[in-house]
């Protein structure tokens, strides 16, 4: 490869996308000033957003982009994961200014922590950006493992007992889980080099190309390992135990990234291998496994939300529920089911950060995360209260908000594919979640606030990100832009190419 090739065409596009957060992290490290770190991180996140929109518009026209030989490969499915990373990345960077700034002012953290935080933030974005564009499954695994390490560093920013405990559990469970995933990837690679021995055998496109010739028994074992491994990272029950701890103890902007975006990245890896496995042995095997884990996830989430006393843990368990629904949709399959699932991925990635931001502001105002001690948010902070209520309604699938549509499509696909038992169980769990989640939210939003709440302004950047996400919730509930429809449609075709149940 000539040196000039690195900067031209698709190579240049990918390189620019990945260099943006790298430069951001370097600038933050060198300058070490609070205001400038904030500006650098927001601009880096903004530039990423612009570039992702550029890449996605190219994907809509050209369907795929490859770069650096075949090392990077973006298709419509990868683009659907890229979109939420960039959107949530930007709003989280904006929210960080206010949230971390307030903790800095209160003396909870000092300048060293601020620098460390923004370094970690940029690197975290970088690792997540590589996952959906890597064609080489080895690189994909390495970056997923890297997301664990970076996010552990972000969680252990505070010296609090709870933060350290959750960071330790997260590190051990996720690392052990991902070692299962590496075994699964090695099995797929082994199946592939038995067919063709080329240096590209680790690439997903190459595996897909040869998938019809794989040994069926090997593929079955491999997929089980993949599902356990990346399922741990995606928060599917019963491997979800680290999730509520880590997501509730992280700084709120990081919680938003963990819940809204990182879970999708991990689930994306499962679906990549689901596609290969479906092509080799038909979709029935992997779909059944996905449906079983999905039903367990939604059920455990419903029970845990019922008993929950901590607001952020409640939101974390709601993430377990939604990852369950996403897994359910992929398991049900069919064009409509997968279409709904991909919408669900985007919708959840918008609503969950919105809820985390609102709850972060509420936590800072009330100085507690306990649901029972928070009352009358709407009187103390009218705008945040209203948006928190809207987010809560959207999260449980109330029309006319966006999640209603995608959940409806997923459950419809379940009935259509004849999975009556799984569908009816999930509907029961969803009804329970609906009731208990809304009861918690309504109790917090209405009622009379305790008089000790300080009457100070939370700052404009505490509310702007929530408003941005809130308006997206409204828009996507009633109208899906034509470009997004094309993209989601193409991506469902990719996921369904192994045939549907």
């Amino acid at each position, binding site marked *: 490869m000539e040196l000039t090739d690195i900067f031209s065409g698709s190579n240049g596009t990918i390189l620019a996308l990945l260099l943006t957060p790298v430069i951001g992290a370097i600038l933050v490290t060198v300058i070490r000033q609070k205001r400038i770190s904030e500006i650098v991180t927001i601009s880096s996140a903004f530039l990423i957003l612009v570039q992702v929109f550029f890449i996605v518009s190219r994907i809509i026209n050209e369907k795929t982009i490859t770069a650096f030989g075949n090392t990077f490969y973006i298709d419509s499915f990868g683009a659907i994961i890229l979109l939420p990373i960039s959107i949530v990345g930007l709003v989280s960077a904006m929210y960080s200014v206010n949230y971390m700034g307030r903790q800095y002012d209160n003396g909870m953290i000092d300048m060293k922590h601020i620098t460390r935080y923004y370094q970690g933030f940029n690197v975290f974005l970088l690792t997540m950006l590589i996952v959906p564009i890597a064609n080489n499954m080895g690189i994909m695994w390495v970056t997923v493992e890297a997301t664990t390490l970076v996010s552990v560093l972000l969680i252990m920013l505070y*010296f609090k007992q709870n933060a350290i405990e959750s960071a*330790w*559990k997260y590190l051990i469970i996720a690392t*052990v889980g991902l070692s299962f995933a590496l075994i699964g990837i090695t099995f797929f690679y082994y199946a592939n080099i038995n067919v063709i021995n080329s240096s590209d055998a680790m690439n997903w496109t190459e595996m897909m190309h040869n998938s019809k010739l794989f040994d069926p028994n090997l593929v079955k*074992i491999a997929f089980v390992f993949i599902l356990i491994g990346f399922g741990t990272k995606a928060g599917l029950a019963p491997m979800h135990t680290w999730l509520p701890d880590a997501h509730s103890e992280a700084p709120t902007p990081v919680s938003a990234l963990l819940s809204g975006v990182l879970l999708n990245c991990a689930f994306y890896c499962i679906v990549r291998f689901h596609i290969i496995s479906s092509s080799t042995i038909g979709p029935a095997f992997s779909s059944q496994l996905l449906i079983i884990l999905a039903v367990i996830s939604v059920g455990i989430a419903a029970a845990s939300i019922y*008993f929950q006393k901590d607001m952020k843990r409640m939101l974390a368990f709601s993430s377990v529920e939604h990852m369950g629904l996403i897994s359910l949709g992929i398991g049900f399959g069919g064009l409509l089911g997968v279409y709904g699932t991909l919408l669900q991925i985007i919708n959840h990635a918008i609503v969950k950060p919105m809820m985390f931001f609102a709850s972060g502001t509420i936590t800072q105002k009330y100085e507690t995360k306990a649901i029972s001690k928070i009352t009358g948010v709407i009187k103390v902070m009218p705008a945040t209260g209203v948006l928190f209520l809207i987010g809560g309604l959207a999260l449980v699938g109330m029309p006319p908000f966006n999640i209603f549509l995608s959940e409806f499509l997923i459950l419809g696909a379940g009935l259509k594919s004849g999975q009556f038992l799984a569908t009816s169980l999930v509907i029961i769990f969803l009804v329970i979640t609906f009731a208990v989640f809304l009861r918690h939210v309504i109790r917090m939003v209405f009622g009379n606030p305790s008089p000790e709440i300080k009457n100070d302004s939370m700052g404009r950047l505490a509310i702007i990100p929530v408003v941005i996400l809130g308006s997206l919730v409204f828009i996507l509930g009633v109208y899906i832009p034509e470009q997004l429809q094309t993209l989601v449609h193409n991506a469902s075709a990719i996921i369904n190419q192994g045939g549907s149940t």
Partner: protein
Amino acid sequence: MIFSGAILLIATFGIVTRRGFADWLGAYRYQSIVLAAVTALIAYVTGIWEIYIAAGLTLVIKSIIIPKVLLYVTRNLEIEFKVETNPYVSLRASVIISAFLVALSYFLTQQIPFKSDPIVSTYLPISIALFLIGLFVIVNRRSALNQVVGLLIIENGLFLFTLTLTHGVSLIIEMGIFADILVGIIISSILLLRISRTFDSLDVGKLQNLRDD
């Protein structure tokens, strides 16, 4: 080759039975040296030069850098934190369980249709045994510091597993995996220091503030 595999297993049992931190770290160092030798042997048999580099990296990173890093970050820990006094299953019983896990992994690998290849048939069961023993050690040990050894054993098992089955994924990815491990070990040791400072103990049984009940 059977002989080298047996030495690797013996070295692993050496780690399982060590109570103190410095003892198992030494045993881990021996295991890594044996692993590097096995890697070089596989490189010689297959004739792939990249595997020699992997062997060299294993020797440098696992038998020198990782033990040094762990010793350095834990130098201020009190001695009582470093000794596994009360594992869930006694160390004597864990030897029997580990032996059982070795037998299990030989049984499991016979169920999977692999090409008949002397390297695969010798080392694959051993790599899976290392993986299972590592999992068992993590679950069994109470001290957070001694849980790290479980991760290290798992990682050595994974390395051997990918190496035997695929004769090494490409060098860049091996490097990435090595870098991940190294950073992971550093982060976990920083966390260990903080656990010992804030909880005044390294007993993971005491890490239970976060529960739903």
